[in-house]
């Protein structure tokens, strides 16, 4: 039964829900001119409130109503999601205004998606895990296909939808096996049952299928190769702010869920899923980067790059350990660090893409030529984001790389380390291609263009975020180490 205290724990989710409804109502009743600023305003206010509500509970460690955890790990992701969605909203103000009439619904959907994220990252039961992920997915399909009169948006949504449906069905099958083996859907309980004698005998046959089939769903969400193929198409076709969302928050959710399920429910199957993820990590970063190398659309290139980054994030999970004394570099903190760094960075890069699309029509590499002269702020911002993606200190990407490389070195996974090293360089190669295009190529004939106000704010926030994470690494390290330690039971 729910008591009052538990409701407080659910406050962030409730705030989001209410905000989403308010947004719908505002959309119904406000005049269009007012709605244009009121809708994002209300949404952001709601997110900020949710952020505050989540932040206020930082340090809690309990399970709400049996299926949701109110722990630092969940709050961490909620905070990241809230901030990122604020940025997405800021970036989408003008972009969406010019492309659709259904602004209220758009923001409401974003809020519901965030709500789904909140549920998914704190889910402690296979049912909530599934539901959270699926809610996120379904809302994401809608968001992706939001520009319903745009062939590309629609195509992206359909591909995303079909892929997601199948992936989640496969995952479900895996869940059903887990359930059958342990007779429970509660993650912690599963872990306990997996240690029981009668279950152990069967592990030989169920462990791999359960791990593999369940991993398909997470891998789909986190777009790990070879379960990534929806991602480039969806990212490219989706409205760019939605891409921002998908490539950061949605992906982070995939990792959060994966980490929680694997770490809470299957710690005893560590060698199984770690081996699987080891392979996936190598594949993901390599294939993502190699394809990114060959792209001519910056948006698509970033899509592949975000796939590659998923491989880097995965390194943290592959090498996860529980060092005595709760020291940093346990692997999971790398995932967390990466997620926050990546949220600012990748969202930023996609935001710039959105701004360039706004200014020039589309986001081919060619359209980035001479950007420094045409929109210096955008070029500078993009440079910062790209450098951060490449892991250049003192930007966020460096902090992230540091924290995911570290556990790999600690575990002495040399092959993975070398592959990651090579990939970091390959990635820098195509990021620099964009930098080159923006700064080294000069096209005096192309006109300058302006950047929307909301976008400007969003970009500034993200730049500050990128520098902030890099320079004040200690704060973020503190938070991620704490969250991770809680998750790892330290």
């Amino acid at each position, binding site marked *: 039964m729910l008591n009052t205290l538990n409701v407080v724990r659910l406050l962030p989710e409730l705030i989001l829900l209410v905000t989403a409804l308010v947004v719908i109502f505002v959309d119904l009743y406000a005049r269009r001119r007012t709605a244009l600023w009121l809708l994002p305003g209300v949404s952001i206010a709601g997110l900020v409130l949710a952020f505050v509500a989540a932040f206020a509970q930082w340090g809690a460690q309990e399970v709400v109503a049996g299926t949701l955890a109110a722990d630092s790990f969940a709050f961490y992701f909620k905070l990241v999601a809230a901030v990122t969605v604020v940025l997405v909203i800021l970036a989408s103000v003008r972009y969406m205004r010019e492309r659709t009439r259904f602004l209220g619904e758009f923001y409401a959907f974003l809020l519901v998606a965030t709500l789904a994220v909140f549920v998914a990252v704190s889910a402690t039961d296979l049912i909530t895990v599934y539901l959270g992920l699926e809610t996120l997915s379904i809302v994401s399909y809608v968001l992706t296909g939001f520009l319903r009169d745009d062939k590309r948006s629609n195509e992206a949504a359909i591909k995303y939808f079909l892929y997601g449906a199948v992936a989640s069905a496969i995952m479900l099958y895996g869940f059903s096996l887990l359930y059958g083996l342990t007779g429970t859907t509660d993650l912690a309980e599963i872990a306990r049952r997996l240690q029981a004698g009668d279950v152990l005998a069967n592990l030989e046959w169920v462990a791999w299928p359960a791990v593999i089939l369940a991993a398909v769903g997470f891998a789909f969400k986190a777009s790990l190769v070879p379960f990534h193929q929806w991602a480039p198409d969806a990212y490219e076709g989706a409205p760019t702010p939605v891409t921002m969302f998908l490539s950061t928050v949605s992906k982070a959710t995939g990792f959060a869920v994966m980490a929680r399920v694997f770490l809470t429910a299957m710690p005893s199957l560590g060698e199984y899923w770690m081996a699987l993820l080891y392979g996936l990590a190598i594949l993901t970063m390599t294939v993502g980067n190699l394809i990114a190398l060959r792209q001519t659309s910056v948006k698509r290139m970033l899509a592949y790059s975000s796939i590659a980054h998923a491989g880097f994030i995965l390194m943290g999970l592959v090498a996860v350990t529980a060092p005595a004394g709760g*020291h940093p570099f346990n692997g999971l903190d790398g995932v967390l660090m990466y997620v926050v760094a990546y949220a600012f960075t990748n969202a930023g890069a996609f935001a710039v893409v959105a701004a360039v699309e706004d200014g020039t029509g589309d986001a081919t590499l060619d359209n980035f030529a001479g950007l420094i002269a045409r929109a210096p702020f955008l070029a500078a911002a993009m440079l910062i984001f790209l450098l951060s993606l490449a892991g250049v200190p003192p930007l966020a990407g460096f902090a992230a790389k540091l924290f995911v*490389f*570290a556990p790999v070195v600690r575990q002495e996974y040399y092959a993975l380390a070398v592959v990651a090293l090579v990939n970091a360089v390959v990635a820098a190669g195509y990021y620099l291609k964009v930098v*080159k295009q923006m*700064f*080294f190529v000069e096209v005096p004939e192309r006109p300058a263009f302006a950047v929307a106000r909301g976008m400007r704010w969003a970009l500034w926030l993200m730049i500050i975020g990128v520098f902030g994470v890099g320079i004040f690494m200690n704060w973020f390290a503190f938070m991620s180490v704490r969250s991770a330690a809680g998750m790892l039971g330290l």
Partner: protein
Amino acid sequence: MAFFERWVLTIILFWPLLASLWVLLIPKEQEDRIRRVSIWMSVVPLVLAAVLFVDYGTRFLGGTGGIQYEVQVTWIPQLGASYHIGADALSVPLIFLTALLTTLSLYYSARVIKHRVKEYFFLFLLLETGMFGVFMALDLVLFYVFWEVGLVPMFFLIGIWGHENRMYASLKFFLYTLVGSVAMLLAFLALYFKTGTFDIVKLTEMRPFADDIVRASLVFFGIFLGLAIKVPSWPFHTWLPDAHTEAPTAGSVILAGILLKLGAYGFLRILLPILPSAFAYWGFLMVILGVISIVYGAFVCMAQTDLKRLIAYSSVSHMGYVMLGLGAAGVALTGSVPWLASKDSAALAMDGAMLQMFNHGIITGALFFLVGILYERAHTRDLTAFGGLSAKLPYYYGIFMVAGFASLGLPGLAGFWSEFFVFRGAFDIVRIWAAIGAIGVVVTAGYILWRIVANVFLGEFNEERWGNKLWDMVGYEKATLWPLILIMFFLGLYPTPLVNFFNSAAVELLTKAGFMF
């Protein structure tokens, strides 16, 4: 005084960053103001660096020595990483060199760069902070941060203001260096896991992996790769000719003058003190790479027709001396050199390597300025296009000869000392390899005199082609070169102040690494 001691490094370090931000705030149309601000702002760290040099020299040298002006502020307590900076007898001269070359480069660029001025000066000042940071950092994370910070502006300097093939060169430069630096980062992490700290001073005391040569070697090569690419040692040098050739003049100067030194500095600041056993174990490899670099670089120079490329390759050769000196010291560290005649040899080899770092900065910096001056007039770097400039441009000729002779290690000029010290050390430790390396000395004379001087300055002047297009050095060019030339002369005759610094550093480093004098 206390204030000075506590803040001087921080001010030097971040002053250029502040200056660059100031430049960023000036509207880009006010080019003259940007230039003035940059130059004058860069003078501040120069003066401070000079004061630092004198202060360290008078107060600590010969006395306590060691790392002074230390500042340690907690940065990432979880990782034991801190904002920990300091300077010892090794870094103080290099900080000065950095400040000097930057100011000269800015001064020279102010007249030459007319395109995208604001960005140029912004990046240049940013670059200075990066370089200072590397020379000051006493924390591996901080070191890495500044190491990379220096990378980006140089990428732009080459890519935007470079010559025809600049995009390719800049990309190559960046990616090469990145490979090394990521490998280095991995090795840093391995050190961290062994010891639980990133602090260089603490690591030096702990000497991780002292009894595990396999892991020590693994870590060693991680860091080695990063540093050797930067130095660059053969066979990691191939980014250098392109980067140097395509960079704008001041970019080449800084690239050759300072950035290459970052790599060599890393050997001395990180590898030697922290991993002395691996350093000793692999010292011989460094000797071999150093010797190959010397001879190979020198021979390749002989085949060049592009003046700038030639000087670029000469850097490979000259930085080979650094590697040779360091490697020889490493071999001596093993204690298994039965024929070692003098315990001083190891220190002298290191003195030589350090001197070479400084001298090469001065000399090659000057040479790149000189090539730039010629290029500004002729718009070609083809050696064979010239001839007889000694008569037409006597002033230029004179300055070039001094720099050229210094480069080929003529006694009486700065370059000699580094070669002398390196050979003095190396001949006692790795005799045969040092002897092979000595071939480079002859070939160096060959390419400086045969390729450059004979082609460009002697012979006949092509009146038809050049006519009035070439004119002798003018005021600002002279002002750029004279400080360097004077230093070459001064150090050539009286290297004492600098050797005092470096010898003190070398003795200290070797003692810490367990060398028994």
